[in-house]
């Protein structure tokens, strides 16, 4: 789990609107805090699908699964098992 989380943090640091020094909690909203926008979210979906070789089912493309670090980590963990 921790490895997945770190991987997503690295991705966001390199590809989002966050500064290198930005700190955010596991449950903070990535969209409300302006870290990613709607296009950033689509890019994140692509990155996760490719990196973990998973096809994310439509019904899992929810704000709950994608709007926080914890939600994203849990979803990847579930699908990559």
């Amino acid at each position, binding site marked *: 789990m921790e490895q997945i989380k770190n991987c997503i943090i690295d991705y966001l640091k390199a590809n989002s609107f966050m500064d290198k020094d930005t700190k955010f909690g596991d449950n903070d909203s990535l*969209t*409300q805090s302006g870290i990613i*926008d*709607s*296009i950033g*979210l*689509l*890019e994140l*979906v*692509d990155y996760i699908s490719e990196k973990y070789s998973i096809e994310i089912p*439509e*019904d899992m*493309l*929810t*704000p709950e699964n*994608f709007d926080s670090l914890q939600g994203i980590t849990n979803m990847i963990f579930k699908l990559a098992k």
Partner: protein
Amino acid sequence: MIYFININKMAIERDDIMQAVQELNVPIMEELSRDIENLASKIRGFIRSQIVSFKKKGALLGVSGGIDSAVALTLCVQELGSENVYGLLLPEKESAPSSKILGAEICESLGVSYENVPISPILESLDIYKKKEQIIKRTCPEYDSRIHKTSLILPDFLNQGLLNVPYIRLIKDGKTVSKYRLKASDYLELIGLQGVKQRSRMVIQYMVAEKMNYVVCGTTNKTELVLGQFVKYGDGGVDLEPLADCYKTQIYALGKFLNVNEEILTRPPSADTWSHYTTDEEFYWRMPMHVIDQLLYSQEQHLPLEIIEKNTGLSRDKIEKAHRHLNKIKNTTEYIRAIPPIYYLSK
């Protein structure tokens, strides 16, 4: 009798407003259809004043066969006379055939001179169709242009609550056979390709308008404007926007008042840029027009949740989610509405 409270203008406490609003039961849809004759008159006055201030001789409009251009054209004709208004039909290969027919019909019924300038050759010269087809093929492996029509859709917001993730839908014999999620890079490319349609229309409109010394009159409505549902320097590239403070619901009310052709009034709104007629509800709004307009209006007027619940029939939770969703759209489309920022040397 319809009551209306303009909260911005009433200097009373918020609790008093809420109580008064609840007692009067503000019917948003009725409010948006209220006093249409006066609204039409004011818009006509605006059209004339803008043309006078720009020192132009008339108005040119792109006529799509949709409600917005039908209303704008009618108001221009009523104010300026049909001899000072010119229509352009600008169809392309993927436009619905009915668009051209309805556009020609409304020009003829209003006595407006018009011409048909297909934009397909421009799009072909830029390989727009070919590039679009390549994206569809790599997204949808089973796609066959001989048997499938296509559309770009977003999941329904109110019932599914899913992310704003775009899908290409394949339609065969009028029925959806499959849909595939678009990759971000393909989506961005597709938006750029599709935008060439509206931008080509803008180029032609100005080519003809300048020859005639006319203004190019826009047809964007307020629902589209606040959501960024137009192409910058495409359908947004015009000299005046007489309808941009009217929600789509008000445009329909104006259409009824102006006796616009019934077929145009009942036609679902669409940008009409996909081979399968794709409605604004399916691609952009993700909810019915009457719901999105009520939500946008309630945001604008700062109406309390109780009133929005009563008007829309949505739960408090859904309204709050929808407000957040709409606020995100407004923020992300800010650059579309923005004029190019200028760096002033003296500041």
